[in-house]
């Protein structure tokens, strides 16, 4: 029962010669084609995907094992570099650029037999929580097309939730995997910082960015995670720690597991329907033998403020390279400097410009100590407070998103309202800890609610143990709205 899910089942069937990779990929491509109105994909690499699927089928026919993801279609967030397709970050500034190399995660996917079918829409440069900041138009939530899928990885979330692909990769800087996973009713996981190579992930905020899996089940997410994780000599911040026994963790019960509900993330600012699902999760875990208690992580209150200083600061530097000189958009002007300005003015959207300006400001002489240096101190406090909490608890529990999926335009007028979408997720990024959002029933308007399981650094095994238990328990507890929960667990 470990590593179970639609992707695991495809891979098992392909490896056993019971179905072809080609059929799995063709099915996925057809679904993508039929769901064009979702706006989930920036590019679909149909020809390459089918060729790859045929090669996998040939391998199986020749008696070779294509790997644990044999024939499983995967969608990639469009900030993960692929030598075969443009990588745009949903920004006009990268229009026309195709990377001359593959991200390390892409090479790992291919080595495991997975088939990349396309690149998914996102908030420009991963800055946003609704995918409304894409230069190519928004992505719709498959559960309610009037609502956002969350973000920034809205395209990847919609692809998985809409049944277009069983798996997707995305990136999480402040919640960009977990929040859209919650809003779309799927599983989304951010690994420990350094677990997954960032080589080939177009940087937003380097000290916070991590690539992670999206899937319809915890088992599939763990399977995809196990394929992409590992030390990479091309990323100096990647780490060699062993992954642990994920199979065993998925199968284990939660008897005696100590689960802490983070007070600071489970009260003010969180919608009632979300809190009631968190309570339901706590109750279910208690019923399964876990010890559930409240725990305070005081610095978590300041996490959002620190995040919105550190992330823009790093972004202002990371995005400096888009100047029209070497690749992507170039808007001609009289001189080189004018060309830089014209290119960046035309190529970046408002949110990206806002964060570049904010980041530039907080790193400037005279402001650095008051803002950036202070934010780094808060980050240290967050790590310290989490460490104290993990002395008493094995995993921590919190909502993933303060609300269910919201309507288009609802939060675009005031950026601060949008920024609050990340309130429950940024602390894990600041600490570098793993966290996963698991669907746990539905809230207002029958829309899915995600519950977030957090664990200490390199604690993915215990995190998956709690997440798998929640997934199993959800099947046993009464749900206010069966439809949404079914969508979340759709095979």
């Amino acid at each position, binding site marked *: 029962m470990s590593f179970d899910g639609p992707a695991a089942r495809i891979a098992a069937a392909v490896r056993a010669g019971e179905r072809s990779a080609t059929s799995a990929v063709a099915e996925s491509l057809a679904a993508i084609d039929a769901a064009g109105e979702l706006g989930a994909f920036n590019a679909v690499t149909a020809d390459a995907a089918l060729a790859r699927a045929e090669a996998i089928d040939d391998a199986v026919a020749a008696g070779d094992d294509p790997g644990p993801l044999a024939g499983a279609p995967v969608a990639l967030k469009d*900030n*993960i*570099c692929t030598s075969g397709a443009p*990588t745009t*970050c949903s920004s006009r500034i*990268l229009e026309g*650029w195709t*990377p*001359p*190399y593959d*991200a390390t995660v892409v090479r790992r996917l291919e080595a495991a037999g997975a088939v990349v079918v396309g690149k998914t829409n996102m908030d420009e440069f991963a800055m946003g929580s609704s995918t409304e900041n894409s230069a190519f138009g928004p992505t719709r939530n498959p559960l309610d097309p009037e609502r956002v899928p969350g973000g920034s990885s809205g395209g990847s979330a919609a692809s998985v939730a809409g049944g277009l692909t069983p798996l997707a990769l995305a990136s999480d800087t402040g919640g960009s995997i977990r929040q859209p996973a919650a809003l779309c009713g799927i599983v989304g996981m951010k690994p420990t910082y350094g677990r997954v190579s*960032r*080589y*080939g*992930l*177009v*940087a937003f*905020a*380097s*000290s916070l960015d991590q690539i992670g899996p999206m899937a319809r089940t915890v088992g599939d997410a763990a399977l995809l995670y196990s394929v992409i994780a590992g030390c990479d*000599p*091309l*990323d*100096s*911040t990647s780490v060699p720690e062993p992954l642990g026994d994920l199979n065993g963790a998925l199968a284990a019960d939660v008897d005696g597991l100590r689960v802490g509900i983070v007070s600071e993330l489970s009260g003010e600012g969180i919608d009632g329907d979300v809190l009631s699902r968190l309570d339901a999760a706590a109750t279910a875990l208690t019923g399964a033998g876990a010890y559930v208690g409240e725990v305070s992580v005081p610095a978590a209150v300041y996490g959002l403020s620190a995040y919105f200083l550190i992330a823009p*600061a*790093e972004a*202002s*530097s990371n995005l*400096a*390279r888009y*100047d029209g*000189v*070497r*690749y992507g958009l170039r808007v001609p002007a009289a*001189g*080189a*400097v004018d060309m*830089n300005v014209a290119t960046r003015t035309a190529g970046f959207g408002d949110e990206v410009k806002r964060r570049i300006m904010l980041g*530039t400001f907080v*790193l*400037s*002489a005279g402001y*650095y100590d008051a803002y*950036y240096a202070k934010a780094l101190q808060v980050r240290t406090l967050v790590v310290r407070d989490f460490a104290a909490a993990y002395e008493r608890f094995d995993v921590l529990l919190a909502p993933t998103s303060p609300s269910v999926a919201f309507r288009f335009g609802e939060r675009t007028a005031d950026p601060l309202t949008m920024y609050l979408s990340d309130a429950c997720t940024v602390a894990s990024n600041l600490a570098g800890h793993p966290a996963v959002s698991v669907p746990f029933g539905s809230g207002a308007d029958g829309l899915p609610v995600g519950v977030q399981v957090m664990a200490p650094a390199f604690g993915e095994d215990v995190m998956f143990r709690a997440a798998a238990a929640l997934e199993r328990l959800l099947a046993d507890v009464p749900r206010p709205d069966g439809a949404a929960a079914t969508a979340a667990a759709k095979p």
Partner: protein
Amino acid sequence: MSDRPGFGADRVWQSGSPGLGAPAGTEWEMVVGLEVHAELLTATKLFSASPNAFGGQPNTHIDPVCLGLPGTLPVLNRRAVELAIRVGLALGAEVRPSIFARKNYYYPDMPKNYQISQYDRPINTGGSLELPSGKVVGIVRAHLEEDTGKSTHVGGAGRIDDAAWSLVDYNRAGVPLLEIVSHPDLRSAAEAREYVTELRATLLAVGASDGKMEEGSLRVDANVSVRPRGSAELGTRCEVKNVNSLRSLGRALEHEARRQIDLLSSGQRVAQETRHWNEDTGRTSLLRSKEEATDYRYFPEPDLVPLVPEPALIERIRADLPLLPRQRRHRLAAAAGQSPARVALLVERGQDDLALAAVEAGATPESVLKHLEQHLADGAGALTAAGLAGLIAMEQRGELSSNQSKAVLAEMVRSGGSPSEVAQRAGFEAVAAGELAGVLERIIAEHPAEWQRLCTGDERERKKMQGFFTGQVMRATKGQANGRDVAALLEDRAGTSADSAPG
């Protein structure tokens, strides 16, 4: 070196006219600190696998990382770290755990529009460099950073602002640099040149850099200020860039110091600014004022982890260091009983081992130094220490004239061999004393009138005739007679003649 009077290395500047706080006749002093950028001799770039090589077709030594393509990440070059530590230890710096930082500014030849450098925690802190003169110049730090590409601005005045177009070559982008920053301890253009020369020699000695200023693998920026001699305060400094040779450095410093003195002497202030040295006009011009200075917005480079060299690595590198120029000067100076400054030239030429061995073989140190300094500017060739010592011994025994000695030395440089063999082969057998006396007697007999003048003439007459007879002896012996022997013989014979002169 200078085209204007009053600009020598140790000359005193005086303000021509009274200025505010600078009365007429004020003696000025130049204060200089240097930032030297040395390209490190690694096979590949600081953060990627492209070759670190000078030349090559534009944009051929490149890769996604050094081009800063989206998604790429830097990976630190271990060899560059080792070379940086080598230089640090050679300078007596403290090698500390360090971190990389991003220095943010826009320029088309900088692929990421930030430079990965080190800021508040450099790999090497402190240290000093002892110059041949004995002066010790303090080192602030020596840190690692990546080089930029090269821009060529076409059209207009050749600047980025007014060029018709600009070409960029990224072959140099990401080449490892060590920036070595001195304290403002230098007091003249000559001293600044001596510092760069010594630093270069040290970099070459430890194998860290090829030190080619003409290829830009060694580049110098100068921070210059002036102050009344004796003042303890530093004046407002200007940074002078685009100094591409030792000669330029001297010229630029003298020009810039004079410019600042002229300002101060006429009651104006020196503005803190960055100035560009123009080799053709021999002047510095304003590049940017302090107000226009870029705020680099340094912050720790999140794509790299702290650099913490293991103590064992540092000790291995320390044990592996060759003798440094300073140590070699002191070693030879001690052996030769001279000052380090006196033997600096031989160390610079790499002839100190030869000199040391010759002295150890028993040769007179002064003769060894003189021969090497005067006759071996183009290298010692096949000359051995034993050969040189033997040659000096033959000279001292009077077996070779100075001309012969020079010829023998030249032959030993060309093809080696012992001095006695070489001398014999060349027919340079010294004329034996008895034989020489016979030759002289024959010449006296042939020139009785001249001999009479030598014996009885006044001082002037005697000198003249001594020259005549010496020349005759030399001609008769085909130059093989030892000059000193001939002089002694003449003295001796003339005294005897005078004594026995008839009536």
